[in-house]
């Protein structure tokens, strides 16, 4: 006798699943990845491979031997964390640096909270900030490694534009002088930047990934738009008030991981709010904190810290920013 499946409705399911969503994010990262490989050659490949492999391995070992739960490494989420961490490091980082970062990202930031979806802070960013605090010299060495495809790098810069500005201002130079001395044109920053982490060589490649994520409905635009919009407005106001000391909008948006952070890190499902209202508050918060750190803090950039700080507010945002319910409430007793 044939057995029938009997289960409650609905009887069909959309084709989307956790794995396909994670795969889509990795696909969205591929333009940036390709540009990095073009500019940084083996260094970029090495970081991505070591990062992804370590993250997957750490998750496997913890699930299999420590927690004795089902191993879920084939949902690509651990691999994605590794790739994101690699893209957030300086291109000349040694292999052991990302190895340590990956262990911290998965072992501490993700698995101690219960694994996928349970973590409060973005694992890749926890890994990055851990490295930034533990290895400040390595994490701010922006020298460009030898590439396979491009020999004789024309501009070998040792610091990111933001760091150069910060140092220059501290040394008493005026902002227009610094910018002129280092030839930071918006065009250059949009297509190919000099200093910066592996994943943010080209703003255009990142925006391409953003469009892909929107088209595939993996993320909604609110968080990145809120972050970038806030940074734009805030820096515009500061820049208009005192152009000698405060950098302008285009410079701030195109440098220091704003695009990489707002498109790929701040939109991480588990560590970002659920509702549109929550997403906008969260994005504005990240923008404000980033600008404050850049203008008044001791770190030149600040996106990572801003995202991690706002990560902590997500449970509250979820609690107080409810979706609009259908129909108003009536009390029928």
């Amino acid at each position, binding site marked *: 006798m*044939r057995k*029938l*499946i009997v289960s*409650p409705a609905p009887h*069909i399911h959309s084709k989307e699943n956790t794995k396909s969503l994670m795969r889509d994010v990795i696909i969205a990262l591929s333009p940036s990845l390709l540009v990095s490989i073009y500019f940084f050659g083996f260094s970029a490949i090495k970081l991505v491979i070591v990062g992804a492999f370590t993250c997957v391995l750490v998750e496997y070992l913890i699930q299999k031997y420590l927690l004795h739960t089902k191993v879920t490494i084939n949902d690509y989420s651990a691999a994605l964390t590794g790739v994101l961490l690699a893209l957030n490091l300086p291109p000349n980082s040694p292999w052991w640096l990302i190895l340590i970062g990956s262990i911290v990202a998965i072992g501490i930031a993700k698995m101690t909270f219960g694994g*996928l979806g349970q973590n409060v802070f973005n694992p890749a960013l926890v890994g990055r900030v851990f490295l930034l605090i533990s290895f400040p010299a390595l994490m701010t060495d922006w020298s460009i490694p030898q590439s396979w495809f491009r020999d004789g790098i024309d501009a070998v810069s040792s610091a990111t534009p933001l760091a150069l500005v910060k140092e220059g201002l501290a040394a008493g130079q005026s902002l227009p002088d610094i910018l002129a001395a280092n030839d930071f044109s918006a065009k250059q920053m949009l297509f190919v930047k000099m200093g910066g982490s592996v994943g943010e060589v080209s703003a255009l490649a990142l925006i391409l990934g953003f469009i892909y994520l929107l088209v595939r409905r993996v993320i909604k635009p609110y968080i990145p738009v809120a972050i970038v919009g806030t940074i734009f407005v805030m820096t515009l106001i500061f820049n208009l008030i005192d152009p000698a000391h405060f950098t302008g909008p285009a410079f701030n948006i195109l440098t220091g991981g704003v695009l990489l952070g707002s498109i790929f890190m701040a939109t991480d499902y588990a560590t970002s*709010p659920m509702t549109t209202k929550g997403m906008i508050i969260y994005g504005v918060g990240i923008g404000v904190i980033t600008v404050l750190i850049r203008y008044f803090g001791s770190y030149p950039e600040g996106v990572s810290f801003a995202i991690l700080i706002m990560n902590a507010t997500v449970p509250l945002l979820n609690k107080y920013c409810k979706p609009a*319910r*259908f129909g108003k409430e*009536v009390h029928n007793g």
Partner: protein
Amino acid sequence: MKKTFKIGGVHPNDNKLTSDAIIEVFPVLDTAYISMAQHLGAPAEPIVQKGDKVRVGQVIGKPTGFISGFVHSSVSGTVTSVEPLPDLAGNPVTHVVIAVEGDEWCEEIDRTPDIKRDIPYSSEEIIEKIKNAGIVGLGGAAFPTHVKLNPPKDKKAEFLILNGSECEPYVTADDRIMKERPEEILIGAAIMMKALNVDKAFVGIEENKPQAIASMKKAAEAFPQIEIVTLKKKYPQGGEKQLIDSVTGRRVPSMGLPIDVGVVVQNVGTSLAVYEAVQKNQPLFEGVVTVTGHCVTEQRNFLLRIGTPFSKILDAVGGLPKDAAKFISGGPMMGKAVANIDASTLKGTSAFLLMTEEETRRKEEGNCIRCGKCTEACPMGLEPYLLNKLCRAGNRYDDLEKEKIFDCIECGCCLYTCPANIPLLDIIRINKAEVIKIMRNRPKK
């Protein structure tokens, strides 16, 4: 301009395989098994006994409560037994089993094909006729129609909305009747408008049925008070509250009924049944059923008498497909899985859908990744992920009530969309029933 509801919704592939299949009259079989539980509410009480002769359209069950209705024989012949038989879920329900002899109809039923346009009846007479014809809503819940047409005295209906959206994938029963019998549907609407004493009606139809829209629009030229509204293709467009939002922009309050915003909603199939009951004296004992699924060799639309076993329908469409793994009475979003293939069709049966294991098997549940897709999909603006968490925590009924679990319309959008395959609706459904029970038992202030 296409109208739609504003909150949530999903876009499953509509798979209207039988949209062009003309309604065929299904042959009368040798035995009919007529259930006394045709709808929610109290089952009917059989008034025939073994050995009684019955004719088509004769009353065989009478209502036992307010939300209850008459049941009529769909065949003529001899009652061979009145006994509990398993329904489609396998639960025992009283059935009247009739051995068919010929096809002899009650004399008062007008079987001519002429369309009767005049409505010489008063509101009370119409409601009485609908009640006596045992008409129930054919849109899914099968709620007795006469109850809906008789709103409480303190509430006044302003509009009648006919639901022709048929947002369930695969099902084409309403699509076909709107193409083939638009005028009768609209006369049915006019009858209900008279019963409700309203002077405006809308028919909401999803955009994926352009021929039905065209045929209804043409027929509506003779009915200036009835407007055909094209709706966007989005599930659950045919949900009562969503349809009212789409068509009128009014939102039925939480825990409220459509009549609270001055609207009564009826399905187009119900409207056709109303026409036949009032103008042709034909009680409800047959309906259009779509037999469909990618694995079915011949997908067809049948005009089927109630009490036909599902297993016999299979014989008419080329037998049991080899890879069919799930039988569904209704559509894939809200239909019921059939556990007992020998169960028979009811008044509210709109489709018989066969799916393969690959199409329908649930995937393994993973961790909630907090993507928020369930919240985005919920047409009631609820947070299914949160309800799921509270349900699983156990004994959090107060919180579940605060989060309005009782507003869930069980459309299935959350479960459909969840990338981690969490059985959100299954869990919410069980706890919703519990919360509503607690709320009902609470002493009134």
